[in-house]
């Protein structure tokens, strides 16, 4: 065995070792999820060297260099980090917007709309690159195939999902089979499959290449409105439903693996953390729950006082959980150890519909009906910046992978790019 190269993965922090074994090139991922701005690089390097035979004394210095680079990436952000200004306003669609997404490089962004199209935007110029048209009704869900980002999947109220090529804008395949609106569609991490969630109470799995249906996941007793593959393998799938449960499925078999029940009202979102050991769920019953995916039990319940929890998300390393409340408060919790509340973000005057962490984890971004988006220090809960300027409620927001760009989508039919 011989080490060829170190590759860096910024978010979540990790190192990928590329090596040869009997002439075949292989790679191995090492997660460094604990890395933060106080980490001792020498000590981490010592640990890694002990565990990995591939890391010899010759490459020790290179390893430390890599760790320093990763550490810098986390430090460059945070309360003393950058401020965002309106960079471009995309006057997007004739009719209201639905969901938005960035590609991995943060150079293109896609928007879905009630005008039945999905548009691709150049973030740099603010210009429209492509209009993906063909759906017969509202385009509700949009997504890229990470990390390559040469394909787009759209889920529509016309009961179909479509896969499009980014470069030409042509529709590669149309995924039929649902008997009601599709409200979520996602590529599996390796891009081989697409999963869809629908108001017809089912979720489906399709072959991304051929567009043929692989499985139908039956088991929910109400509309399925949230769906996510496990972020690393893409072999497991969770679905959240208005029936108040979250289901876990294995993409290789048709049957349900587990039902996570305990919420007493509709689920508003369900998410895996990075290593898919945990699932976070938000519900209109006013609570968010953390679930252990191996034990399939609820390990913690946090409640927002008399408010619905409208969104939930993990930070990129999967160590903290953030919730968005209809009372205009966002909260951050420790997800691994004791689930205690780490910070409370107060300031929005109306409900928060979307919450997300910056990739390095220093900031939290919230989108609110009070027409502002806000950036918060994720550890203190202090508001770092108010992104104002939209004329209508903001219902969606996202960070680019590099963390240097933010997109917000509003009921005023515009999208704003902040840098």
């Amino acid at each position, binding site marked *: 065995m011989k080490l060829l190269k170190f590759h860096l993965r910024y978010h979540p922090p990790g190192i990928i070792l590329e090596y040869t074994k009997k002439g075949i090139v292989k790679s191995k991922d090492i997660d460094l999820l604990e890395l933060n701005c106080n980490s001792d690089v020498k000590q981490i390097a010592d640990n890694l060297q002990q565990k990995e035979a591939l890391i010899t004394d010759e490459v020790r210095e290179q390893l430390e260099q890599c760790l320093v680079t990763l550490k810098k990436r986390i430090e460059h952000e945070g309360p003393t980090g950058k401020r965002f200004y309106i960079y471009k306003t995309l006057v997007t669609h*004739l*009719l*209201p917007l*639905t*969901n938005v997404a960035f590609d991995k490089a943060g150079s293109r962004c896609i928007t879905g709309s*009630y*005008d*039945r199209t999905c548009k691709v935007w150049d973030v740099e110029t603010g210009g429209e690159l492509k209009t993906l048209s063909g759906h017969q*009704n*509202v385009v*509700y869900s949009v997504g890229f195939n990470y990390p390559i980002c040469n394909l787009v999947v759209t889920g529509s*109220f016309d009961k179909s999902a479509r896969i499009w090529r980014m470069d030409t804008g042509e529709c590669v395949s149309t995924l039929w089979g649902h008997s009601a*609106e599709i*409200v979520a569609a996602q590529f599996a991490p390796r891009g081989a499959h697409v999963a869809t969630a629908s*108001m017809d109470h089912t979720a489906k799995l399709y072959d991304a290449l051929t567009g043929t249906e692989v499985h139908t996941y039956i088991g929910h007793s*109400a*509309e399925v*409105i949230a769906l996510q593959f496990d972020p690393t393998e893409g072999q497991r799938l969770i679905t959240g439903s*208005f029936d108040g449960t979250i289901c876990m499925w294995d993409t290789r078999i048709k049957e349900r693996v587990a039902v996570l029940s305990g919420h007493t009202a*509709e689920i*508003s979102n369900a998410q895996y953390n990075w290593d898919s050991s945990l699932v976070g769920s938000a519900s209109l019953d006013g609570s968010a729950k953390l679930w252990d995916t191996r034990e399939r039990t609820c390990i913690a319940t946090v409640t927002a006082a008399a408010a619905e929890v*409208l969104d939930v998300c993990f930070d990129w390393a999967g160590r903290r959980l953030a919730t968005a409340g209809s009372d205009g408060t966002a909260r951050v919790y420790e997800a691994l150890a004791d689930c205690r509340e780490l910070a409370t973000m107060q300031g929005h005057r109306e*409900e928060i*519909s*979307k919450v997300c962490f910056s990739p390095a984890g220093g900031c939290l971004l919230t989108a609110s*009906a009070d027409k502002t988006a806000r950036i918060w220090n994720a550890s203190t809960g202090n508001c770092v910046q108010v992104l104002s300027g939209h*004329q*209508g*409620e903001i*219902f*969606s927001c996202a960070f680019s992978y590099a963390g240097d760009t933010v997109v917000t989508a509003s*009921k005023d*039919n515009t999208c704003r790019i902040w840098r």
Partner: protein
Amino acid sequence: MRTHVPNFQGLLNILRKLRSHPEKELRLLLLGLDNAGKTTLLKQLASEDVTHVTPTAGFNIKSVLSNGFKLNVWDIGGQRKIRPYWRNYFENTDILIYVVDCSDHQRLEETSLELAELLQDDKLRGVPLLVYANKQDLATALPASEVAQDLGLHLIRDRTWQIQACVATDGTGVKEGMEWVCKNIPVKK
């Protein structure tokens, strides 16, 4: 000044309103040409201030309680360029409400054609129709009976219908229309 209807509440709320609803919940679709008074009517139903209403680019949703029913009213913009998108909203409609500006004589034919097209759509087949003959406070407004004639309502055979004279800005006649709606709720499958 608020230029939008305040209870839009994000994308999740759209999905909640889109659900196949329980027995005592209804989906009402509010259509008509631009400047017919749909948003004013919606605000009047929700007992909100109607002094500042701007053209709707898109749609507004409101839930109104009436006679023990929860009415989810979808108010869709009526400008010509967005009329082709009305079809987006047809699914699962329980009652169609069509609003006519009775003082706009010139566009009576246009509104009549739009209505005729709606009534031919498959997704709206058999859906009861309520026509609000709006702006009756204006001196030039045609009476409801004449509007019914012009719209050809008497020729409708495949659904129940009703025409109701009203003034959306002060609420005259609005309640009577809603009472008809509650009495004519189609039997759910």
